[in-house]
């Protein structure tokens, strides 16, 4: 499988938010008006103007209070719920890995927001004609042979772009090395069937806001159920026609018998 992937090493991130800014610049996203909430994290979460966001998570590490910086964006699932759900096929999984979005198709139904297990797609609540916004793994840059803007910018080397399989090998080497500071879990390797973005961390993922997800994706079931549509339709139509015919016949026979009885 020659798919792109991204590997984020949370132990390397210094929380500079260079990636957040680079993302805004490359995608021409406007600034956001926010209030001081007593934290460096700004804005509070992914929004339709911020497709990648650094979360400042406070955790206890070796009995000391520590910050973990968590980069958030679309995970680019291997079996994306958003793609299965999208009414008009505006979201598509490209063979190379990125999950891309066609804003000329989207009708703004917001089904993708519910279908995403990571709560990623955001809606432009402030617009009259509102669309969805989400990270597309800088597909325009990748198509042109460049890295995504965040990976290009990161001064700490926390974001790596490359072949997903190779990145997995790198990740495994780091995680299972002697005296490795990492917990033994590569987030994204198997979650909901695997994601193109993967994370390494020294604190358990559930402590830093990653949802605990099963290995199975509901997408298979979804597709199976929906592909059964023609069969169900045909079955129902045939069954009803059959019933109609049988009842009609029964009535005819009944009338005939009644007439016969009458004659006698």
């Amino acid at each position, binding site marked *: 499988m020659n798919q792109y992937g991204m590997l984020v090493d949370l132990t390397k991130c210094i929380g500079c938010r260079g990636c957040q800014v680079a993302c805004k610049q490359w995608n021409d996203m406007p600034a956001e008006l926010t209030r001081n909430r007593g934290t460096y994290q700004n804005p509070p979460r992914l929004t339709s103007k911020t497709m990648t966001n650094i979360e400042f998570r406070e955790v206890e590490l070796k009995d000391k209070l520590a910050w973990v910086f968590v980069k958030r964006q679309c995970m680019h699932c291997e079996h994306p719920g958003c793609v299965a759900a999208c009414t008009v096929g505006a979201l598509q999984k490209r063979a190379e890995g990125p999950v891309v979005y066609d804003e000329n198709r989207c009708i703004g139904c917001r089904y993708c927001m519910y279908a995403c297990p990571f709560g990623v797609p955001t809606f432009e609540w402030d617009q009259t004609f509102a669309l969805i916004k989400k990270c597309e793994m800088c597909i325009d840059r990748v198509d042109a042979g460049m890295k995504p803007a965040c990976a290009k910018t990161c001064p700490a080397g926390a974001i790596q772009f490359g072949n997903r399989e190779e990145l997995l090998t790198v990740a495994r080497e780091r995680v299972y090395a002697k005296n490795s500071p990492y917990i033994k879990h590569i987030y994204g390797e198997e979650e909901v069937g695997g994601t193109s973005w993967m994370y390494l961390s020294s604190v358990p993922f559930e402590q830093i806001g990653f949802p605990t997800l099963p290995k199975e994706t509901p997408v298979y*079931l979804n597709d199976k159920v929906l592909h059964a549509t023609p069969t169900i339709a045909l079955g129902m139509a045939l069954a009803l026609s059959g019933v109609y015919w049988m009842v009609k016949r029964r009535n005819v026979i009944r009338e005939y018998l009644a007439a016969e009885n009458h004659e006698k």
Partner: protein
Amino acid sequence: MAQKIARTFIGEIKSFPAWLWVLIALTVFGLGVGVYRLAVGLGTTTNLNHGYPWGLWIGFDLFVVAFSGGAFTLATLVYVFQMHEFHAATRPTVLTGLLGYASVLIILVMDLGRWDRFYHFMIFPNINSALFEVSWCILLYTTVLISEFSPVFFQRLGWQRVLDVIKKITVPLVIIGATLSTLHQSSLGSLFIVMSERLHPLWYTPLIPFFFFVSSVAAGLAMIIGGATISYWVFKQSLPQKVVGSFGWFLPWVLGFYAIMKLGELLIAEEIGLLLTANLYSVLFWSELIIGCAIPIVMFMSKTVRHNRVWTLIGALFVLFGIFLNRFDAAWFALKPAPGFEYTPHWMEIAIQFGVLSAMAVVYTLIGRYFPLFEETVHNGDAEKFHVVASAPAE
């Protein structure tokens, strides 16, 4: 001549009862707010947010489609199973279904971020999307309902030849309609299959499409009863209580099957324990089961209830409440929001929703006043003596 028409017109309008004027006022108000919503977007006119991208409107859509299931249920009983004793109920029920679907279509467009692109589902298919299937089925089925209902107008116009044609294709039309209904009633449930991380396990199950379908039959039967009873009071015309009550006879079977399947599913999925923990979710689920299933099952098993107009209506309202709750649970109460978000509907959401529903009630009333909606039904002065209102060719 013109003066005479104008005078009749004004006379008619003057004869509208007060409640009809209230409905008209709500409609006009809802229309105004609706136009405002389309002009300024969802952010200012609704309280929907990132944690609750769907809310009141989707809840109502699911519920209205469920009870509009009365139209296909009845049409199937009358034309496929050929239970002609129910024939007189078809027109009012098909009209309720049709108006139900019309209201859903309007609200769905209201709900779209790009409402100007509502037709995109026709040109950009995604066969894996439940919402894509729902959109198509609702559109096609609404067309079928219009055809099923059109004889009312043709009869008024006296277009006998068109009537004959429609009468010939009624059975295939009904079968197509019932098939489309089966598809979209269940695919409204399929909507939730991909939401395994959002929908609470008491509701999330691979069987949810099936549950949506079965419960729509129950909601549909309850709607037929409700509609017949209300017509009895409003138009002073309706079906004999014997017929209305016999719809109630079906309910214990359908609801019993539904409740057993639901509990059985929880048992097999080993989630039955969730029903014993005291929290909002178990309370909601129990309410659905007790108010929406257990009580009406017991009620409709009794002949005394089925023979009494008021009791039959109360039983039907219990059923409708249960399904209402079920759909709102799935679309709102039991969907896990993104952390830190809350939602209570904005007054404009409510105004638009009730504006659309009022509009449908107004249309129903006007059609009931001026068109032969109750052909072959009985005009009812006292409960015992029925006589035919407008004689139409008997089936």
